[in-house]
């Protein structure tokens, strides 16, 4: 057993660290920091500017992509280190929809024209993608989706409704699963994978407000939307295969260990500033014990992730074990957001940054912590609910 990184990996780690410290824009840090303190939504620029900087640096915006498509082609260990360093420095996330989701589908199953048209924009961060999978009647049972695409000459005509479309309000393009054969023997067999320009007439995006007041997700309606046939990925009715391939790619970094670690550090700092029983909250045995509990879960998960990584590096994975990373990773994220809310006591109450008041009250670090708690209930639901992940493990790992 050897958990040390090789000297090449350590060199890589210091290169990444140096790159971040020299290139992560102070204005971005300030802008995001100010918005978090005041409970404001991030803009498209906030979301994409770090992506754009990485896109100009050896394909670092697409760590897993092959070099021939402009990606960084990091090894599994390098990817891990890269994610760790970005989390450590609290860099803004890279939006996953282009880089981790549709990008790999395009370079694996798309034709040359599609690659040439779409990959550069994903890589550079100039084109913002969103995902059209879920429908009101198709959540966990995604294959039951009804949005239809009927071929008429050189177009598909798309009708239906997608939902939970994350950040569709910023999106230039959407990748969609649509039904092209309603008569297929199995529902999975009649699905195709379409790329759709969000500016096409007939598309309507309506915001869905989440319980913390945030606008992250949307309903996306398609009313006789004409999509050129050249936007079909691969073969008609083979979309489910591509969707499953995409799920495998979505998993990297899903455990979020480094981000949760960072968050726990901050909670400890908050708890040392907050008072309870006349002493810093961090001295309260009950609170301390909750922190320690979260740390132990996180430490276990870190080594589960490293074990998966070692398997992956040896070319043996990652397999359905990634469902374990999703379940435990989101458990911990929820644990951490709850602890943060708990740490600030009464100052969990103010809902700042709404249109109802311009007052800013309480310590800066308390802003929106209850919002995060409420918002993060989503984590055990999205990306295949944690119950669905258990079904996957039961079937694929335990053979039940």
């Amino acid at each position, binding site marked *: *057993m*050897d*958990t*040390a*990184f*090789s000297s090449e*990996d350590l060199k890589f780690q210091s290169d990444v660290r140096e790159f971040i410290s020299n290139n992560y824009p102070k204005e971005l840090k300030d802008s*995001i*920091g*100010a918005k*978090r*303190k005041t409970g404001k939504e991030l803009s498209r620029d906030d979301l994409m500017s770090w992506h754009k900087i990485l896109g100009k640096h050896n394909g670092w915006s697409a760590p897993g992509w092959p070099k021939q498509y402009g990606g960084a082609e990091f090894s599994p260990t390098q990817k891990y280190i890269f994610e760790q360093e970005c989390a450590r420095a*609290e860099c803004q996330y890279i939006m996953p929809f282009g880089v981790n989701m549709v990008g790999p589908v395009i370079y694996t199953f798309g034709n040359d024209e599609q690659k040439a048209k779409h990959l550069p924009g994903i890589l550079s961060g100039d084109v913002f993608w969103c995902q059209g999978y879920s429908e009101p009647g198709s959540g966990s049972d995604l294959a039951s989706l009804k949005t239809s695409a009927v071929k008429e000459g050189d177009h598909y005509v798309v009708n239906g409704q997608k939902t939970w479309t994350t950040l569709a309000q910023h999106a230039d393009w959407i990748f969609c699963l649509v039904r092209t054969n309603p008569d297929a023997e199995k529902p999975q067999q009649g699905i195709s994978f379409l790329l759709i320009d969000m500016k096409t007439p007939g598309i309507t995006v309506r915001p869905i407000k989440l319980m913390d007041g945030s606008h992250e997700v949307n309903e996306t309606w398609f009313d006789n939307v004409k999509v050129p046939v050249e936007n079909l990925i691969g073969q008609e009715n083979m979309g489910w295969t591509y969707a499953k391939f995409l799920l495998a790619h979505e998993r990297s970094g899903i455990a979020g260990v480094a981000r949760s670690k*960072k*968050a726990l550090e*901050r909670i*400890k*700092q*908050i*708890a*040392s*500033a907050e008072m309870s029983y006349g002493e810093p909250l961090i001295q309260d045995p009950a609170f*301390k*014990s909750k*922190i*320690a509990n979260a*740390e*132990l*879960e996180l*430490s*276990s*998960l*870190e*080594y*589960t992730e*490293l*074990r998966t990584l*070692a398997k992956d*590096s*040896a070319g043996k994975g990652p397999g359905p074990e990634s469902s374990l990373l999703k*379940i*435990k990773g989101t458990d911990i994220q929820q644990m*951490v*957001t709850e602890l*943060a809310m708990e740490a600030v006591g009464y100052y969990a109450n103010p809902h700042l940054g709404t249109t109802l008041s311009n007052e800013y009250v309480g310590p*800066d*670090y308390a*802003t929106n*912590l209850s919002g*995060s708690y409420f*918002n*993060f209930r989503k984590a055990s639901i999205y990306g295949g609910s944690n119950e669905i992940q*258990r*079904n996957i*493990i*039961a079937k694929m*790992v*335990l*053979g*039940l």
Partner: protein
Amino acid sequence: MNFDYTEEQTLLENMVTSFVRDDYDWDTRCSIVKTEEGWKEENWKKFAELGLLGVPFDEDQGGLGGEATDIMIVMEQFGKGLVVEPYMPSIILAGGLISKLGSADQKNSIIPEIISGDRRYVFAYAEPQSRFDLFDVKCSATLDGDNYIINGFKSVVFGAGMATHLIISARTDGDQRSKSGITLFLVDIKSDGITLQNYPTIDEYRASEVVIENLTVSKENILGELGNSYEAIEEQVDLSTIAICSEAVGILQVLKDSTNDYCKNRKQFGQSISANQAIQHRLVDMMIEYEQAKSILYMAITADLSNSDERRKAASAAKARIGKAIKFVGENAIQLHGGMGVVDEYMISHFFKRATMIGILFGNVDFHMKRYTDLTQSNIQSINEDDGINLS
């Protein structure tokens, strides 16, 4: 970075695995625990022949110079067979103390005898009032010429009935709960002044209460420095804690796999009970707990155990986390076996009982959570108000 075993470690694992498979099948194990002695001395000789008794000792003394990973390999496989011979108490804990503290003469005379299987030391440390505090020692040793006279009472000394010798912790100075003033003595178990009350434990191991009355021990049988043994005791108990965590991970694997198989084979309402989602999700959660337990064990094994703070943290993190996994996996293994889970005849209850007792050994979940917390939450930086906070 990898979690692979070296070639030697793979050989070691294969060797212990085949011992458990060939010489320690379930029926054999059941017959051993029913004997008066509660172990099989022949197995100890076999361990000696296989080189297992030398795993953690220096090559200078004829050992294999094994590290935490090697000990983990042995203990994990022993866990899968519920091996009752006192390997951890004698080889890891008492053996570790002698390696750490022994003078050159002591090591040269004792360790080869341990490795050959001719001597077995166990460490008598716990007392009725001490609970898990290793420094809480009432047992006293008073100087009398060139000898010490020891009086006291030691609780639940595992494997004492199988031992030839004891290491006794006694107070030569300081208050009952002082970390200084604790001295270790090496004594023949047949010495006048030592009385053993032997009994079986709920998990079918053997332990003893040790009554010590006017036991005379010569100065030269002090192990380590006079009054200065606490650090070494804590260290060896930490390493032994990691060793029993490895045993627990082996047991958890059996609990999880057996329950999985049982649920597939057990039919009710015309189908396997594992066709029910309520059962499937429980089995998945057991598997997750097992994997998390194994991961934190790997964390502990690969930590820098030569650094005392890192070692303390690693041992307590592993013991606390694995203690939780033991409860979850163990209780659910019994629950999902239904009536078969609660009977003595079927093996699953025996694995559950052993795992539960490991949960207590060297400190339970609460004890190690507190120790871990005290070790990790003393140095918190103050908050930078300008930073905002990013929890997403």
